[in-house]
């Protein structure tokens, strides 16, 4: 789309006519640089794509009174092609620790499996379970050593250890953050909005599960790279349990049922004389 700039050009000089001494800097009309592109709408779309988180998924986890709630969608996409609607994005590292998958599926699956092996070795060597802090640090150190080599992992390690519930965010750039509420993936900004407004530390397990499910649903509604099934897991003192796995399409109609349209007048057959 070529924009017409003829209106911005001024025919009359601004200052002192053609006096070379006075108006060297002032003879042109004021103007500003516009992005140099012929496709202005595409430019705007690309700039939104630039800031949007890259990993095509929505995962979230938060700590509350009864433990940790972990939820994720189940869509795998390759550009515009949906390659699967039934990917398991919540990885069971061991009976009391979960990891979420965002980024490269192979990277996440392999390194979480590797982490599970290291955790078991730690248990055997030290006769006690590894803490969530320790497990996340093991993973973060491994990912840090592969920095810049193209791994794509954005994961949350959630578990219950001697200190209670624990939640860490670990990514392939080597970052590791301890926190109470995280969401990772291209749908994460949408999920954060619902999660932040509905979060209370004192929630029952059912309320927390509903909050997690709702946040995933809203993210899948707006983000094209998220969809499929919203799985919700709970990590408590005795380990993790899967609470639900609902198709987001069905969730949509349960949250927003279709109102039957009010029909004012039904069409009937024309009476033929």
């Amino acid at each position, binding site marked *: 789309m070529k924009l017409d700039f003829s209106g911005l050009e001024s025919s009359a000089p601004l200052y002192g006519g053609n006096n070379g001494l006075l108006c060297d800097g002032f003879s042109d009309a004021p103007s500003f640089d516009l992005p140099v592109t012929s496709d202005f709408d595409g430019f705007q779309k690309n700039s939104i794509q630039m800031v949007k988180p890259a990993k095509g998924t929505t995962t979230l986890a938060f700590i509350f009174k009864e433990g940790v709630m972990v939820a994720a969608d189940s869509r795998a996409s390759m550009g515009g092609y949906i390659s699967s609607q039934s990917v398991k994005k919540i990885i069971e590292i061991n009976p009391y620790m979960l990891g979420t998958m965002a980024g490269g599926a192979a990277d996440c699956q392999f390194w979480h499996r590797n982490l599970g092996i290291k955790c078991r070795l730690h248990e055997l060597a030290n006769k006690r379970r590894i803490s969530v802090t320790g497990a996340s640090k093991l993973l973060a150190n491994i*990912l840090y050593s592969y920095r810049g080599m193209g791994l794509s992992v954005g994961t949350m390690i959630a578990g219950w250890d001697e200190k209670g519930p624990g939640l860490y965010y670990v990514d392939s750039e080597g970052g590791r953050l301890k926190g109470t509420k995280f969401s990772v993936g291209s749908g994460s900004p949408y999920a954060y909005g619902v999660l932040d407004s509905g979060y209370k530390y004192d929630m029952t397990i059912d309320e927390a599960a509903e909050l997690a499910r709702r946040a995933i649903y809203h993210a899948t509604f707006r983000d094209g790279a998220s969809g499929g099934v919203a799985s919700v897991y709970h990590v408590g003192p005795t380990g993790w349990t899967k609470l639900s796995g609902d198709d987001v399409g069905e969730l949509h109609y349960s949250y927003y049922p279709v109102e039957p349209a009010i029909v004012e007048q039904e069409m009937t057959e024309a009476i033929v004389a």
Partner: protein
Amino acid sequence: MECVFGMVGKGFALVVADSSAVNSILVHKSNEDKIMVLDSHKLMGASGEAGDRAQFTEYVQKNVALYQYRNNIPLTTKAAANFMRGELATALRKNPYMVNIVLAGYDKETGPSLYFIDYIATLHKVDKAAFGYGSYFALSMMDRHYHADMTVDEAIKLADQCIEEIRSRLVVAPQNFVIKIVDQDGAREHSWRRTTKD
């Protein structure tokens, strides 16, 4: 958008850092402590890439502790600063650490000191230092109002002025800041300046 700055006063040194952990447009958390307590009398405020910051500061902290175990004497602030600079310089041409550090310490013999350590292994002993976009505002504020031998209250007041300036003038200003202080009684957290409760 990370801001770290520090200054030296009469018998103490102060380090202030923001506490946001950001990924592109998303703020993952706003209570991340970026000022590491290196040992009993040293503070290290670090800003830079996420993985590098945590890994490098922890590496330095463990090496400082190791020196103390091996030699039964703690490192001086100057020695710790030079150790850090050496590590950054060695890694620079192979696998650089993208971390900027403000090191504050108190030594019994020499008193308080502040070191400015860049990601390309620049090392300067200074009275006031700042990193990040916030440095554009904090440095001139400190140049104008800083004087030698300030009391703790004067220094905190100056730090607050810098934080206010950053909050009002920086386009995506960090929400919360943490202030830590080191003096003859040791390194400790002084206070937080919050706008959000994470």
